[in-house]
């Protein structure tokens, strides 16, 4: 074992301890303390004694499983068709496919109600022309619907990268042997892309299992996350049961991720040659093309309709009980530009830094897990992943408590009042996204490439820098983008950690506007701007990567040429 691995492991662990484990433990300890401060398991017992808790647990499980299933139904065809076939507008489809993740809080829910709700555009039109309505947004099915179209990009992005990384020779070999159509997909391509799919699907599962906003907005309280939240945030009551539920959710999320990791264990997904140039994109037959375009078109229409709703809302003067707004205005944008321009800068700054930290940690952890024998290395992954299950408000209270009264060195500013805390909260909360992408990317990379580099005399660090990281670029990019765009719409920790309006990001601004009748329009306008800014940020990242990618591409080609020799 090299000291470098120990050092890297220690650094990651220190970060996780300081900004995640200790603050959260500071809060969660309440779940296991009796009134006089002595330890007890009494609160834990009360959880299992309650019928409502058992019901909530199974509801959460059901919703999370079904959401992952529907998300896969949306994402798999999108990814497969755009990567493996000659497809017009593939880039556009993949860019649009990421948009659902950037649905700002509140605005998204409002827009969904306006489009699909009881008196939403769809149901008003259906009722007017056909005399019936669809209860799309009702009950647990409503939650599944919204979650699936919100989180399917996790699968789409990871699967796209995984499909691209498959050695084209595999597919060609299968085709040569007469394997086509479904059989080719199920027996060759999908299994080879499994790490990407499992990475995405397990993220969807855990994310939905722990999601709070959607069920609350749809009025579904009998799920674990809402039950925990409702208890933690009741005015004037400190209810340990809320923290007990959170602890149980964390344990379960870790177990789910461990199970996903177990499913992939013992198999080899690595291929020597990276895809792209190697793959011959196939043509679709006439009928197949029609079906594919039709399916993708209708899926995109549904998943992007909330964005259409937000856009309409941002231009609407009054929109009430009608398929479309009564009249349109630009006033909301004027309001927003007048007093919220600093928020855009803050969002870019915090989320950019947070995503950079996430990618750095993600690559490090992935490497430690897959390429070293560091003891207990799997724990780094589990700890980082556990942050998915920690409610933002718990993390924020943990920061405020753990760092209470501490001053930023050399200044009079409280650590907890500095914007760095907001950024760190984003980094911690979005780390699992980047981590999953990085792990999946490295899983598909054959270790022999590194061995070759080392045989040729490169040091370990140089190998990582010049071989591993460049070849993982796609996964790293996916991780960066996911962390960045989801951090941009984080709200629960943000509200608690913002200590001055000058340091508020856009998500806080949207929340601020959406508290009142007069604020709906400006809130939606800021939402549209947030979507635009994040989309531009994503595009810019692609652009930067493309530029720095060129030497890498030639290097990859060199590796390939060298392999043939």
């Amino acid at each position, binding site marked *: 074992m090299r000291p470098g691995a120990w050092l890297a492991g220690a650094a990651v662990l220190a970060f996780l301890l300081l900004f995640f484990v200790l603050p959260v433990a500071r809060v969660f300890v309440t779940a296991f303390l009796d009134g006089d401060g002595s330890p007890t398991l009494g*609160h834990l017992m009360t959880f299992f004694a309650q*019928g*409502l808790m058992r019901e909530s647990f199974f509801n959460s499980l059901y919703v999370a499983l079904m959401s992952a299933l529907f998300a896969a139904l949306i994402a798999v065809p999108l990814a497969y068709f755009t990567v493996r076939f000659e497809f017009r507008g593939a880039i556009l489809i993949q860019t649009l496919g990421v948009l659902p993740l950037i649905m700002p809080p509140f605005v998204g829910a409002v827009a969904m109600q306006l489009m699909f709700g009881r008196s939403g555009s769809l149901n008003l039109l259906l009722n007017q022309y056909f005399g019936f309505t669809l209860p799309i947004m009702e009950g647990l099915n409503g939650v599944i619907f919204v979650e699936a179209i919100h989180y399917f990009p996790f699968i789409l992005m990871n699967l796209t990268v995984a499909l691209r990384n498959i050695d084209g020779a595999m597919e060609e070999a299968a085709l040569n042997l007469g394997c086509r159509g479904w059989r080719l997909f199920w027996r060759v391509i999908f299994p080879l892309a499994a790490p990407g799919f499992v990475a995405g699907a397990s993220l969807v599962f855990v994310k939905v299992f722990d999601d709070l906003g959607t069920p609350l907005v749809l009025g579904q*309280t009998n799920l674990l996350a809402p039950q925990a939240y409702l208890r933690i945030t009741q005015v004037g009551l400190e209810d340990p049961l809320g923290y007990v539920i959170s602890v149980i959710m964390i344990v379960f999320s870790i177990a789910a991720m461990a199970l996903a990791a177990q499913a992939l264990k013992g198999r080899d997904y690595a291929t020597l040659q990276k895809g792209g140039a190697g793959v011959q994109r196939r043509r679709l037959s006439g009928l197949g093309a029609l079906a594919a375009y039709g399916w993708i078109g209708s899926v995109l229409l549904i998943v992007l309709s909330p964005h259409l709703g937000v856009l309409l809302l941002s231009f609407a003067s009054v929109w009430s009980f009608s398929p479309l707004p009564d009249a349109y205005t630009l006033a909301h944008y004027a309001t927003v530009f007048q007093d919220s321009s600093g928020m855009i800068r803050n969002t870019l700054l915090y989320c950019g830094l947070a995503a950079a930290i996430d990618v750095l940690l993600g690559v490090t952890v992935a490497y430690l897990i897959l390429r070293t024998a560091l003891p207990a290395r799997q724990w780094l992954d589990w700890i980082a992943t556990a942050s998915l299950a920690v409610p933002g408000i718990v993390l924020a*209270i943990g920061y405020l408590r753990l760092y209470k009264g501490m001053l930023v060195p050399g200044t009079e500013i409280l650590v907890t009042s500095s914007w760095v805390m907001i950024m760190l909260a984003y980094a911690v909360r979005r780390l699992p996204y980047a981590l999953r992408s990085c792990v999946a990317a490295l899983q598909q990379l054959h270790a022999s490439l590194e061995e070759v580099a080392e045989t040729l005399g490169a040091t370990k660090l140089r190998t990582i820098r010049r071989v591993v990281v460049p070849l993982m670029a796609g996964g790293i990019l996916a991780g960066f983008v996911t962390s960045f765009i989801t951090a941009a719409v984080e709200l629960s920790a943000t509200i608690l950690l913002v200590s001055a309006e000058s340091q508020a990001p856009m998500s806080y601004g949207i929340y601020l506007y959406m508290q009142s009748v007069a604020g709906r329009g400006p809130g939606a306008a800021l939402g549209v701007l947030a979507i635009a800014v994040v989309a531009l940020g994503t595009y810019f990242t692609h652009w930067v990567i493309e530029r*720095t990618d060129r030497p890498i591409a030639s290097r990859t080609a060199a590796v390939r040429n060298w392999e043939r020799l």
Partner: protein
Amino acid sequence: MKPTLIFRAALVALAAVWFAASGTNAGTVTIVTSFPKELTQAYKTAFEQAHPDIKLEILNKNTIQGIAYVRELPVGQRPDIFWASAPDAFEVLAGLKLLENVAELANKAAPAKVGNYPINNPQGLYLGQALAGYGLMWNTRYLAAHKLPVPRQWSELVKPVYFGHLAMSSPSRSGTTHLTVETLLQGEGWDKGWTQLLQIAGNSAAITERSFGVPDGVNNGQFGIGLVIDFFGLAGKYSGFPVDFHYPDVTAVVPANIGLVAGGKNPAEARRFIAFSVSADGQALLLDPKISRLPILPPEAMPGKIPAGYPNAFEIAKRAKVRFDADLSESRYNVVSSLFDQTITFRHKDLQAATGAIRNAESALAKKPNAQAAALLKQARDLAFLPVVGVGLAGDKNFLALFSANKKEAAVNKQVTGLEDRWNAHAKDNYARAKALADQALGMIR
């Protein structure tokens, strides 16, 4: 991609902004509030104009997060002012010794009470800053499309025509909803009040998690009628939405409050803002159509400022049938919240289903009388609409004490959650049986 590059850039950016960040200047008053931007902006502009040497920093957090924020900060670093609707939030802050006495800042022109509710906290720890009554808000387009009559009283909301068209929030989520529920319970009595609440909730399409969820849903037409605090309805109406608002007779008028946080950075200047907010000038700002709140000053103290047709809080309080008893409300605060959540919020689907079945059978029965079915239906109604905790237990001191005891004690928590679990199971069972009975009755009639 080179993470080292990004990392370096990140370090530079980090360092740059770290040094650029500056502490709060003297002459800055920080206010934590749950009030919307248009209200706080109006006060900020007016106050800074009158006092050019003082800057207001507004921090908007919802009431719960506001309390958490204040209590987690050390003395000397806290915000100066807490400004929110729910009186219970101020009681929590007072209990944590986080409020200073501000009695001498009160506006002498304001009456001591509205109805029989004291406008300022008797201990002087917070002041009433605006008044609010509770009532019904409806979407006129929605009512027209569904051919629903405009309701004037709570009791009308239990009618079968409103099934699936109402919305309300939960008392555990929103201090204002707690007041509405408590007002109803005090106005109608415990048992009758709960029966009415259960029927209204049974008719509701949703029990929203945020109190603003109700007016928002009525504004955009998701719900026909909502139980809301007055300014939500009035602000919607004056902002051009097709909505209207009415105070029923069973209502209570209570103050939204402002208080000085103990251990703030700038208490002297914060006091000047509190005095301004309750002065005649500060009160006039409430009348802006986008804000539409009721002043704590009677109209004669604000001559020529009040627009025609604007509601007068003191008249409404006089007319109101309920003499709101704050002590009674306080004594059973957690019981009401918990009972509502366990039997209504968390069992809403079952309650809705039972209510729907009962309404169906009722309308069939009205067309074709059947004694046996009527008897079954009465049973069903009793099962669905009688509270699982009767008036006897609700007045029991020991029972109430249990709910205000420290839930961190594992033994207490076990007892309370055990009770809650029984209520929940009981309600679920009752609603299922009520539905079965109603369906059976319907079968007989057909």
